[in-house]
């Protein structure tokens, strides 16, 4: 019987499992996940799980009965510690070896550790529960890093009545989204009482507070590092699988024969933009998980997978503001507000590269206004993909 092993039991791993079965794969599937939980969702961890509106049960991606239908062996609370691409084995903690015909790598990312004792991070259910109990009204909270995670966390903490300070270095993600967005988000946070320190350098930080380069010291009850993440590939060192800021994949999401990768951990050649990309967004995790599963099945069948053509989509909710991103929107120096206005709190920003529309960001934008731009982003991406001649 054909054996497929999937390492990482979250959004991407689950989507791969479902797609294998949906495509009629009737071999053995083993899903290995180091977290002692059924697959759960991460985006609500900085939103509904922090403001307390959702409990842990609500975070689950699938019910027990939906999981049972997949007829997969689910090894939860087990960690893969090594892989061997030549012999097609994965080694688990405890030394057990799993032999596979096909392997799906879906181990996501881990928070980048910052030097400093007692700093909290937010990636797992346990992180969210710990944070929620610490975010008491009146607590002084310092958040280092004003990317999506840091700004969403700041909004959740401020909403819970904490005194929030957001420390932002120059190259944070929201700054990378261009000035209309970073300006808008900064004023949104300021309006809700968040103390935003932009372009600061933190010289020392620990659980008691942060010291800035200009000598200022900020004391705190809770300090959270939201300073980015690293792909979880430590267990693949020496495996024979190509690694380069993630698992390096071809356009079809295959890494080496019999191995595909998907989700936050995968860096693949995206034909929609003609470049290597690693996308840390929730929608990509499911789409790529499903795609990688199809590629693996094609390969096991002696064929080849299709290219994974992807126009990334992400969203962020902060206070009452809804931000939606389609396409490539980082670090472009050609941004323009094409609809609405910052003053109204509802607008659309277009991102271009060499006059080509590559991405759009909607802030509280109505679908009817956003959709034509979204369609144009898709059309432009398809143009690049089309074979020349």
């Amino acid at each position, binding site marked *: 019987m054909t054996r497929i092993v999937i390492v990482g039991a979250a*959004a991407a791993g689950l989507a791969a499992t479902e797609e294998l079965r949906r495509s009629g794969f009737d071999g053995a599937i083993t899903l290995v996940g180091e977290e002692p939980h059924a697959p759960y969702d991460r985006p609500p961890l900085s939103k509904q799980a922090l403001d307390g509106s959702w409990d842990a049960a609500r975070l689950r991606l699938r019910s027990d009965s939906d999981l049972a239908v997949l007829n997969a062996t689910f090894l939860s609370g087990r960690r893969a510690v090594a892989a061997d691409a030549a012999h097609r084995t994965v080694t688990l903690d405890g030394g057990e070896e799993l032999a596979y015909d096909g392997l799906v790598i879906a181990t996501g990312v881990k928070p980048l550790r910052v030097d400093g004792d007692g700093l909290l991070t937010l990636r797992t259910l346990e992180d969210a529960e710990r944070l929620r109990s610490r975010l008491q009204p009146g607590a002084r909270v310092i958040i280092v890093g004003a990317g999506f995670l840091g700004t969403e966390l700041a909004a959740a903490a401020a909403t819970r009545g904490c005194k929030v300070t957001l420390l932002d270095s120059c190259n944070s993600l929201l700054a990378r989204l261009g000035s209309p967005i970073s300006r808008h988000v900064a004023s949104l946070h300021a309006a809700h009482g968040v103390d935003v320190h932009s372009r600061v350098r933190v010289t020392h930080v620990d659980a008691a507070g942060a010291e800035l380069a200009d000598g200022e010291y900020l004391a705190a009850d809770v300090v959270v590092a939201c300073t980015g993440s690293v792909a979880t590939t430590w267990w693949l060192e020496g495996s024979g699988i190509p690694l380069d800021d993630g698992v390096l994949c071809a356009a079809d999401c295959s890494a080496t024969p019999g191995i595909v990768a998907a989700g936050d951990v995968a860096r693949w050649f995206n034909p929609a933009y003609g470049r290597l990309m690693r996308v840390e967004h929730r929608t990509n995790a499911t789409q790529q998980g499903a795609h990688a599963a199809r590629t693996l099945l094609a390969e096991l069948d002696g064929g080849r997978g299709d290219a994974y053509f992807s126009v990334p989509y992400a969203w962020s909710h902060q206070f009452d503001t809804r931000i939606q991103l389609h396409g490539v929107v980082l670090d472009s120096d050609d941004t323009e507000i094409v609809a609405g206005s910052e003053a109204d709190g509802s607008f659309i920003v277009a991102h271009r590269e060499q006059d080509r529309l590559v991405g759009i960001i909607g802030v509280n934008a109505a679908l009817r206004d956003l959709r034509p731009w979204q369609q144009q982003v898709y059309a432009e991406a398809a143009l690049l993909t089309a074979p020349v001649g």
Partner: protein
Amino acid sequence: MTARIELDEPRCVASGLCVMVAPDVFDQRNDDGIAIVLSEEPADETLAGVREAVTLCPAAALRLVTV
């Protein structure tokens, strides 16, 4: 046996993926893009698309249950 779609609306994040893979079954609200189920008991020929939408939904907001 009929299949019924359940949409857990507060989960929806307006990605529009369901509309993309099963346009006869789903739509989105104009103001905020939240999904709308056009036919709760989808016709057999649309079921493959609906199953794909259930897998792809980035908010796990869709279920297909047989009743």
